[in-house]
Structure formats: C-alpha cells, structure tokens
C-alpha cells in the first residue's frame, strides 16, 4: 500500500512539475503576478511529493519488502540497518529518485529563501528548475520505476554489493548528487537571466551561494569516494582516473572556474557571457556524469547495471537542455555586454587565467575520458586511456594553477603593479623553494614530484597567510582586525591553503610510498620504512552478514610497540564476494597500511604493507577546501543578499 502511494506521489510530483514549468514562465512573460507567484507553492508541493515518494521507497528497504524488485535485488534481511537505508541509493532506480529529490529540494530552497529576487526572475528560475525535474521524473517513470512489484516475491534478497556496505561510500552518493544537482540551480539561474535579458552584478551575487554550495558538496563527495577507495580496495590507491571518477571531477573543475568568474561578474561586471556559458556547461557535465554511469558506453569500476534505452533517454535529456540553453545564449549575446575596463595586470586578468587553466584541465579530462569511444567509432582502434595519460596530461595545468594562485589572489582589481605584490610574497616563495630543495637533497634519486608537492604546500599556505595578513592594514591591533576580517576572506585563504595541502599529499604519495609484499609466518616480523610489523595471530570471526579472517599485527618503532592493527579479509556469502579490510595506523606525517592475504601452501600468510607519506593530507586538504567554502557561504554579505533579512514591512494598522 505504501509502495503504491509512493508511486502515486511520484506521478503527482511529475504533474506539479509540468505545471510549474509552464505557468510561471507565461506569467513572467505577461507580467501577471498571480501566475508568477504560483511557482513557490508549486515548488514546495513538488518537493513534499518527491520526499514522500522517497520515504515510501526507504520504508520498503527498511522493512525488507521483497515484493519490490529493487529491494529484492539490493537488500537482505541480515544487512545492518544503516546499509538497509543507504541501500536505497545503492542502485540505479533509487539513486535516480534521490537525484530528483535533490532537484526539487534546490527548487524549494529558491522558493523559501529567494524573497529578495525580483519576482519575474524567481518565477523563471523555478520554471527552468521544474523543467529539469520534469525531464528526470519522466526518466524515472518511463525507464526506471523503483516501485515495480515482483509477481512472486523471493524469500530473501540478493544483498547489496559488499563493497558498498561501508560508511565512507554510504554517504558518498548523496553528497555527489547534491553537488551535481546544485549545478542545475546555476543552470536555471543562467537560463532565467538570459530569458530575462539581464545579467548584472546582482545576478552574480544571487547565483554565487548556489555555485559555492554545489562545489562544497562535490568536494566532500569526491573526497569521501577517494578516501573509501584508499582504505577499502586493498592497495591504498586514492584516485584511478576511472570514467566515473572523471565524471565527478569534471563538474568540480568547472564549478571551481564558475565560482571564480562569478566573482568578476559580481565585483566588476565583466566576463558575463563566459560566466553564463560556464554555468550552462557545468550542468552539462553533471549530466554527462549521469550518462556515463548509467549507459554503459564506457567501462568503469563503478557503473550501475546498465541499459542502452536509459542511456539514449539520458542523452536525449542532455541534448535538449544543452542545445536549448546554448541557442538562447547565442541569441542573447547582446545582454551580456561587459562594463568595467581593466588592465593586463589585474585581479581580473588573473581570474581569466585561472578560468582558462581550470577549463582546459577539464577539457583534457573530458577528451581522455571519451577518447576510447571516439577512437573506436571514428578510427576503428580499440584502445584504453588510463592513469599514465592523465597524470602526464593533466598535472601541468595544476602546476600552472598552483604557481599563479597566491599572486592572483593578492593582486588588486582593475589596475595593479606586480612588483608590490611580489615583494610581499617573496619571503614565502624563498621559503617554499628552500623546503623543496631540502626535500630534494634528502631523497635519493627519485622523481621531482615530491619536492614539487612540498613547494606548492608551502607556497599556497604561505601565500594565503600573507594575503590575510596584508588585509589587516598597518599600525596597531592587526590581530584584532584579522579576526574581524569578512568570512569570505577567511574562506578564500582556507580553501586555497587546503588546495596546497592536498597537492602535497598527492605528490608525496606518488613519490615516496614504500611497499612490501611477502609471506609471513605467525610470530614473524617485517621491516618497512623504519617501522616493524609482527604478525601475532590470525583468527576467524563472524560478522552479521559476513565471515572474516582477522589478523593481529603489532606495529613497532625502535623495538617499542606503538599500536595493534587488525586487517581483515571478509566473505559475504549471500553476494558471494570477498572484500579486504585494510588496517590503518593514521599519523600526521604518514599512514601505515596493512592488508592480510591468503594462507600460503607452505604455511604462513601473504601480507602487503605500505608506508604512505602524508596520506591524510589529501583528505585533510579536501576538508579544508570544503570548510573554506562554508566560511565563504556564511559571509553575512551573502546572507544579506540571499534575503535572510526581510525588508521591514509596514506595521499593520490596529
């Protein structure tokens, strides 16, 4: 019964979305206030209906209702409750429903907090957002209905993929979707502004919180995914340049570019057409991501069970939105005349350079991702494009970005002198070079990558510090002024520093990792990078829905024991799948990473152990970047602009 209500709510949401996609748009065109105002209740109702439908599906998972096809093929009665709930989005149908729920949530956010938007713009934004919802609701209802019943329900389900039964991955999809779909909001704002025929500083300010939010969510989502890969896949890899990872990384790069170019629109009324274009393309990349994951045209480790009709449908949605928006963009080029003039050396030009680097980096990832497809169709060559290509082709752009960042962040708007900024940054630059040189001298005959990473960490963190300090002016009470700087300034510094931290982590992991593979008898020791690991015992343990082989290691340093480590090897009998659970000893400067393997014929166990330098810096930096975004988002200047403060209304006559 609840299931049928869920489906019914979803169909109602579709009808409301159709209504919301047309009536407010006509209202805005004809200047009929009533028709425009109807968008807000419609957005709220649409959200409530979709949320109801999502709740119904969650209920089916929680109660293990195996008469539903999705539940039967993705759940099991023995699965812990947490994973019963996260199982809702651990499959294609449920994850699409989550996607649409977030589309309607963002629409609702504009309806609830957008009081300061001009009524016609608000009506148009909500209409465009509803069009996105219509497209994806139709996709769900026509090709991937999560509420399909089985005529003969099985006695028990087939369980969720054990790799997905993990807290890191359980919350990875919702964050990613919040990011992807957050970009639908900037898309709606861009298209609405084009229809409205007005792109100005105010628009830049309205669209910024949504871009920032989407970027924060993407950062967290990608960070979680990479962290999960690190500890779960058994060899400590954190990024594989897999098509699906690229699908999430491309919108992140474009969102980062958009974030910066929207600042130029807001502060200087320039780069308008470029910003609008980025806003449209960013959502395009979100949909490319959905297409890649669900169509099966590119083989990937993460793809959902795929189906060609779904792929074609998604391609259709993408084509309609992109062609429509870009046509409108071309037709409305005249409304995007830039206003402010600026010289070659200025914050504006540096942000242009930032945008070129980010956009080209994204382009390289895109070409590399689809090249196997292009090569097969156009040149009849079956080939692969993998990690070595991306490392070689993508890294130079990040190096360029890292080099110019501290300088660009400090240059004044409009017209600047490089010399002044350079004098302020010179000590940091010298320090960074010295650190890199020291690292170079200490390592023996390895790549330049490690020292380069440390250089960037020092350069970016130091640069951000100098930037903040230079904003406190002269004279006394500089510390007091530092603490009173706008949150956006702090956000900028923290996020930029975070990028440096992540760069250092990535470079150190690639340059200085130590690996050891061997057979170890119980009671034996191994040495790795100055640490000792003793295999103490191996036992069998039973979990709720798995059987584990659990080893106990003693981690020692200079003969003293500093920790116990418990790597596991699990078998999930229902899904018939083995997983490895690595044991990690986290440290500020290094992780020790141990995996237990198979028993060997001559006795003993296969053991893989790693010394991972600065591993936590990768995710620490991601957290800092997200935190910087949050600080920026909480700046009261944006809250004022986002309408947190209502206009004082006249006191009603008593």
């Amino acid at each position, binding site marked *: 019964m609840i299931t049928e209500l869920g489906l019914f709510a979803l169909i109602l949401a579709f009808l409301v979305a159709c209504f919301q996609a047309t009536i407010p748009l006509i209202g805005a065109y004809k200047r009929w206030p009533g028709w425009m105002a109807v968008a807000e209740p419609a957005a709220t109702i649409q959200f409530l209906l979709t949320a109801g439908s999502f709740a119904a599906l969650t209920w089916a998972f929680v109660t293990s209702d195996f008469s539903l096809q999705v539940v039967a093929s993705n759940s099991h009665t023995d699965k812990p409750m947490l994973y019963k709930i996260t199982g809702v989005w651990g499959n294609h149908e449920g994850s699409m429903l989550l996607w649409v729920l977030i589309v309607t949530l963002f629409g609702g956010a504009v309806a609830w907090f957008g009081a300061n938007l001009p009524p016609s713009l608000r009506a148009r934004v909500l209409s465009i957002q509803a069009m996105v919802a219509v497209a994806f609701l139709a996709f769900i209802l026509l090709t991937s209905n999560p509420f399909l019943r089985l005529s003969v329900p099985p006695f028990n389900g087939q369980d969720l993929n054990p790799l997905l039964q993990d807290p890191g991955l359980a919350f990875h999809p919702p964050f990613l979707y919040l990011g992807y779909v957050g970009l639908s909001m900037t898309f709606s704002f861009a298209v609405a502004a084009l229809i409205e025929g007005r792109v100005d500083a105010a628009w830049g300010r309205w669209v910024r919180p949504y871009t920032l939010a989407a970027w924060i969510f993407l950062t967290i989502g990608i960070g979680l995914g990479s962290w999960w890969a690190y500890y779960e896949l*058994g*060899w400590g*890899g954190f990024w594989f340049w*897999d098509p699906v990872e690229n699908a999430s990384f491309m919108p992140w790069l474009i969102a980062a570019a958009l974030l910066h170019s929207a600042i130029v629109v807001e502060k200087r009324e320039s780069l308008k057409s470029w910003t609008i274009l980025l806003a449209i393309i960013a959502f395009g990349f979100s949909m490319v991501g959905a297409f890649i994951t669900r169509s099966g045209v590119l*083989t*990937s*480790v993460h*793809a959902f069970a795929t189906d060609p009709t779904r792929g074609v449908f998604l391609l259709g949605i993408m084509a309609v939105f992109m062609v429509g928006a870009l046509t409108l963009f071309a037709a409305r080029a005249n409304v995007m005349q830039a*206003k*402010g*003039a*600026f*010289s*070659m050396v200025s914050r*504006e*030009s540096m942000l*242009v*350079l930032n945008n*070129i*680097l980010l*956009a*080209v*980096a994204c*382009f390289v990832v895109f*070409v590399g991702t689809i*090249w196997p497809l292009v*090569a097969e169709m*156009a*040149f009849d*060559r*079956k*080939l*692969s*494009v*993998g990690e*070595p*290509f991306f490392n070689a*082709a*993508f890294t*130079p*752009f990040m190096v360029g970005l890292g080099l110019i960042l501290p300088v660009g962040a400090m240059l004044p708007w409009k017209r600047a002198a490089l010399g002044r900024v350079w004098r302020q940054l010179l000590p940091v630059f010298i320090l960074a070079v010295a650190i890199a040189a020291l690292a170079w001298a200490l390592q023996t005959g390895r790549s330049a990558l490690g020292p380069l990473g440390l250089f960037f960490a020092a350069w970016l963190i130091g640069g951000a510090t100098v930037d903040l300090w230079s904003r406190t002016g002269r004279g006394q009470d500089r510390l007091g002024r530092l603490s009173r700087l706008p949150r956006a300034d702090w956000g900028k510094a923290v996020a930029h520093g975070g990028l440096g931290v992540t760069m250092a982590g990535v470079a150190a992991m690639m340059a200085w990792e130590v690996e050891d*593979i*061997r*057979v170890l008898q119980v009671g034996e020791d191994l040495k790795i990078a100055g640490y000792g690991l003793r295999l103490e015992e191996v036992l069998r343990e039973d979990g709720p829905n798995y*059987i584990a082989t659990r080893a106990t290691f003693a981690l020692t340093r200079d003969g003293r024991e500093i920790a116990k480590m418990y790597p596991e*090897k699990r*078998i999930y009998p229902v899904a*018939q*799948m*083995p*997983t*490895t659970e690595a044991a990690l000893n986290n440290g500020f400067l290094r992780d020790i990473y141990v995996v237990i*393997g*198979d028993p*060997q014929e001559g006795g003993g166990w*296969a053991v*893989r152990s790693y010394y991972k330098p600065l591993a936590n810096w990768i995710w620490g930096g991601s957290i800092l970047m997200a935190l910087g975004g949050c600080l920026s988002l909480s700046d009261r200047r944006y809250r*004022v602009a986002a309408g947190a*403060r209502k*206009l004082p209304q006249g006191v009603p006559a008593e």
Partner: protein
Amino acid sequence: MKRLILALCMIAAPVFAVQPDEVLDDPELEARARDISTGLRCLVCRNESIDDSNAELARDLRLLVRERLVAGDTNEEAVDFIVDRYGEYVLLKPRTGGANILLWLSGPLMMGAGLVMAGLYLRRRAGMPEPQVARLSEAEEARLREILKD
C-alpha cells in the same frame, strides 16, 4: 550449512594483486616489472592495471612480463611483446601514433587557443574607456540603502 559456507570461502577467497611468489629476486628487475605492469590494462577487468587487479589473467600477464624481463628484454621489448599479442587496448598510456596525436595535443592546443583568445579580450578591455555607470532606479536605490544600513 557451515561447511558449505566454508567451501564457498575457499572458492571465492580473495587473492592479492601482486602475490609474494611472483616477486623477482633481483630488486632492480622487479622494480622494472612493477613499472611496466602499472601501464598495462587487465583485459577482463574494468579499467584496472594488471598491477592492481586480482584477476587470474592479470597474474598471467604479470608473470609473462617478468619472464620477458628475465629473458633479457628491455622494457620496450617486453611491452611490445604483450601489445603484439593483446592489441593496443592493453596499453593504459595510449601511443602517440596516428589519430592519437589529437588526444595528446588536445590540452596544449586548447591552452594555446585559450591564451590567444584571452590575450585579445584583455587587450580590448584594457583599451576601453571607463564606461558611465548605469544609474539605479528609485526602487533599487531604496533597496541599496536598506542593504548598506546593516
């Protein structure tokens, strides 16, 4: 039931990517083998190198690479040997020959185009006179005062 599950475990027991018995005694040769195998794709997996993969085929390929190296092949010869048998699909780093040159040059070309376009745009901007600031309407003035007040 317990015994059945245990039997299942035996069948589905996870294997490592690189196993201890594969590792060559000569550390220099082993390092070269690892280097080569991170650049070769496991053919039955989805986008994993043979160095990372648990599949049986990946193990065979790893052993083959080591065999060639022990036989005295250079890195290039060993890779060519594998490509001759499995096709260029096996290479994770595509070669630059033929149309692939487009793939490799896409980044630099796009960067160049971007820089030229940005340069032209910036020069035009720099040459422009400062435009008259559009005047705000009555209502916007009021709203501006409201915002600036707090």
